[in-house]
């Protein structure tokens, strides 16, 4: 599209790219913050290399951060960037193909040296060889300008060059007329002790900003005023999935008036949750870094046996190691939260890439008939509510619960309306009722939930012994009785199916009551929302149904889906939810699967909708 069309858009996609060492993620985070404070809705996508600090200048070492922000409701980081800020040749070439035609490309000229072009496997200089023909190119000697700006403060060359990202950030902030103050504050906090660093980075930030104002780049680099988003009259903040999940767990502890123990072993992309929680003992959350995933879930189970709510967290390979112990938690009927931040597999796979391929494992992945509830988060902010919901289910039914999230929402951030915490209902538990009369039987079960009594050591009324061997349904003693095993098996499945008696009916996110139903789950929410929204605008008979409850499914789902001529199931796996829908509802569905480590592009989902939906009659008539 031409420059005019480009800048008419009410929301924009900006991508920052450079070396792992260039502080790209920081740049992105600061810009995100500024956009939020400017009242823009937004969604981000940090896209860093697998290597901790990949060699400078290499293609695989490029670190990028993409954000879509603006005046519409934003649910994805955007398919194609309108603006690319590339701090070196590699950052330019690996990202070119993503750009919208006519996109603005801002490059640091100084980085396009012979040697660094070679480092990026380039034989010619893309700035001159015409590969940028389709784009508006803005060549700036960022390195030079930065050094100039910081010279007064006597920083070493290394530190001076490190200020580059703030210079570029300053320029972009100017472009979209966004505030520098939050970043300035951050710089002061971060480098507080070192005055020179504070001054230098601030100077770079301001110089970049000033450059935009003063440099006569006219059309190419002009300032654009992005309208504010249609937000509610509440408070907002930006939040990542990792943060939201951690906060949700802590909040749930308060709602259940329960102390919690988070036991985990680091693994990408799950570690961030442990990082966020470490040190928050005062919030009733103790964290324990175990020697491995098995010890992590086992210590969590021990905590639940001892009366604290045990929580464990990992990613696919680590969850695999936990499955034996999960069986024990089911057999002992203990509450337990298992968070799975899914990543691309099989095996080690692509740890930093996202995928939705652990649904089979969550629903079916245990030996024996060992059912348990499974729910999934749809977006960064949604992790807060799903964490609370997972705890609610676990404590209501005295069962382990698996909460599925993934690498994409763990790292991505969105604009999030601050929840009115006092409006959240308390979470009841099955703890012993000291006032209850009658015999104190720890395996007396609530007929509605099959929850047994959550008695813990220290309680004089319930001294009991339990284990992984099949137990008598009443006394809890070891029992090899065949009828008892049948009854226990039935009780265990009833326990999980009874969850459906407490969850809300499945709702329609948007769209028509007939035609094509697009049924999805987890982190694809944003892309599917956008795709269905646009298809609806284009007159297609299509609806969005997004599942939070994976097992059991909401009771009305079957009836709801029966209304539609066709069901489309887009997933970032080979069709795992589709299997579940066939198994539980015996409904046929069209699968749309992508397993390449990337989130869906809105466009891909739209194409799938076009291929399976028809225009509404009246629309066609009108058209």
């Amino acid at each position, binding site marked *: 599209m031409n420059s005019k069309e480009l800048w008419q858009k009410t929301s924009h996609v900006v991508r920052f790219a450079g070396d792992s060492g260039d502080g790209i993620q920081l740049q992105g985070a600061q810009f995100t*913050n500024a956009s*939020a*404070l400017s*009242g823009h809705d937004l969604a981000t996508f940090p896209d860093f290399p697998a290597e901790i600090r990949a060699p400078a200048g290499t293609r695989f070492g490029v670190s990028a951060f993409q954000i879509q922000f603006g005046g519409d409701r934003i649910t994805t980081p955007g398919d194609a960037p309108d603006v690319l800020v590339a701090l070196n040749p590699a950052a330019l070439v690996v990202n070119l193909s993503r750009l919208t035609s006519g996109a603005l490309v801002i490059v640091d000229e100084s980085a396009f040296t012979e040697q660094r072009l070679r480092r990026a496997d380039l034989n010619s200089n893309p700035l001159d060889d015409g590969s940028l023909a389709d784009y508006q190119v803005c060549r700036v000697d960022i390195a030079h300008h930065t050094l100039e700006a910081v010279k007064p403060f006597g920083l070493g060359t290394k530190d001076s060059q490190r200020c580059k990202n703030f210079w570029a950030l300053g320029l972009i902030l100017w472009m979209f007329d966004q505030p520098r103050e*939050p970043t300035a504050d951050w710089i002061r906090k971060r480098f507080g002790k070192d005055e020179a660093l504070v001054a230098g980075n601030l100077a770079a930030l301001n110089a970049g900003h000033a450059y935009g104002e003063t440099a006569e780049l006219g059309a190419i680099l002009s300032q654009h005023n992005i309208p504010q988003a249609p*937000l*509610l*009259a*509440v*408070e*907002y*903040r*930006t*939040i990542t999935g990792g943060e939201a999940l951690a*906060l949700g767990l*802590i*909040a749930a502890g*308060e709602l259940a008036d329960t*102390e919690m*123990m988070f036991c985990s072993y680091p693994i990408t992309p799950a570690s961030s949750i442990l990082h966020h929680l470490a040190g*928050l*003992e*005062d*919030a*009733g959350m*103790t964290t*324990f870094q*175990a*020697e*491995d995933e*098995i*010890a992590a879930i*086992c*210590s*969590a*189970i*021990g*905590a*639940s*046996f*001892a*009366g*604290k709510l*045990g929580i464990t967290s990992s990613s696919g390979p680590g969850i695999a190691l936990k499955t034996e*112990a999960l069986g*024990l938690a089911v057999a*002992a009927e203990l509450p337990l939260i298992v968070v799975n931040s899914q990543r691309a597999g099989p095996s080690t796979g692509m740890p930093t890439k996202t995928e939705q391929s652990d649904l089979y494992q969550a629903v079916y992945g245990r030996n024996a008939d060992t059912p348990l509830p499974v729910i999934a988060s749809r977006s960064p902010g949604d992790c807060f509510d799903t964490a609370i919901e997972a705890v609610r289910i676990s404590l209501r039914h005295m069962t382990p619960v698996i909460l599925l999230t993934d690498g994409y929402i763990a790292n991505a951030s969105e604009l999030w309306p601050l929840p009115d*915490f006092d409006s959240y209902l308390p979470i009841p538990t099955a703890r012993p009722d000291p006032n209850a009369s009658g015999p104190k039987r720890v395996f007396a079960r609530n007929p509605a939930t099959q929850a047994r009594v959550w008695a*813990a*050591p*220290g*309680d*004089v009324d319930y*001294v*009991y*012994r*339990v*284990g*992984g*061997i099949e137990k008598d349904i009443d006394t809890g003693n070891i029992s090899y009785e065949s009828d008892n095993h049948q009854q226990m098996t039935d009780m265990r499945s009833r326990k999980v199916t009874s969850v459906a008696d407490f969850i809300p009916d499945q709702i329609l996110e948007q769209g028509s009551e007939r035609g094509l139903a697009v049924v999805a789950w987890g982190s694809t929410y944003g892309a599917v929302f956008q795709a269905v929204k646009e298809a609806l605008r284009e007159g297609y008979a299509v609806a969005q149904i997004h599942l939070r409850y994976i097992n059991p499914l909401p009771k009305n789902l079957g009836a709801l889906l029966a209304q539609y001529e066709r069901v489309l199931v887009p997933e970032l796996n080979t069709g795992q939810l589709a299997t579940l829908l066939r198994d539980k509802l015996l409904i046929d569905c069209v699968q749309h699967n992508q397993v390449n480590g990337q989130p869906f592009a809105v466009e891909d989902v739209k194409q799938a909708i076009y291929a399976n939906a028809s225009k509404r009659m009246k629309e066609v008539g009108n058209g």
Partner: protein
Amino acid sequence: MAEVSFKDYASDQEVRWCPGCGDYSILKAVHRALADAGSDPVNTVFVSGIGCSSRLPYYVNTYGFHTIHGRAPAIATGVKLANPALDVWVITGDGDGLSIGGNHLLHALRRNVNLNILLFNNEIYGLTKGQYSPTSRLGTRSPTSPKGSFDQPVTPGVFAVGAGATFIARAVDIDQKGLPGILNAGRVHEGTAFIEILQNCIVYNEDVWELVSSKKTAADSTVHCVHGQPLLFGKDRKRGLRLNTKSLTIEAVTVGEAGVTESDILVHDETNTTLAHLLLSMPAPLPMALGIVHRRPGEAFDTTFRNRKPEGRRALVKDLLRKSNVLDRR
């Protein structure tokens, strides 16, 4: 609860080990130890893995958790960290604790979690019908080693030294006099207590401990370690252990013979890890070291572990929610 009998600690469950199994006498010693200490069953938890030995918690009238194979130390760590006020015991076997469970045992020991770990060493997998275990001696014939095992066995106590254990003891199943005292010493120790109990599996590894447990041979084939006391043994306690400072090895000598006087005999220092290594790795015909071989002060993990009752949590949650720049559209 002053006047308690060891019978008060027996549960209502029928004990189901083979007649003559060494586990019976260990169970009795456990009941005794609890009674001697006047333990409160309400605040006592027995956690075990899987194996004949691991059935023990069902037979003790306290809280009990019979878990999964090899994971008892990890689960017990969770129990203890969740509620440090509890008296937590771990029951495991040579297979449960040192084969599949080796890693969790290692980390419990190095962290020094306040657990009382009893490892029943019968040098065999009992419950699965007699396969050789990581403590089985070279050449052990079993269904999985018909020509005799050729895995070098691990020595539990020596492994514990390597893991940095702060309390290491070794005892014989049938020692009703000594065992309860050792169990309680482990119970009160600050940190992980590791107690290896030499247990007789009468069905699959009968009398593997004959030498150290039979009246006839015990005196000459075992030495009881008592802190500050010379390491003497033998019927008339004339035999003793001497350190050869050149070869850095231990040798058995006889007081009164070849000019050996009592002053040549090693005096047991339970705080010295090197001596623990020496004593626990003594090869036959040297006597087997029994009793509290090693005990040294050290901070227990669960005491440093920050365990707080949350106060004013609701306010704190609200603060955390706002820990970030906030856009106010109200």
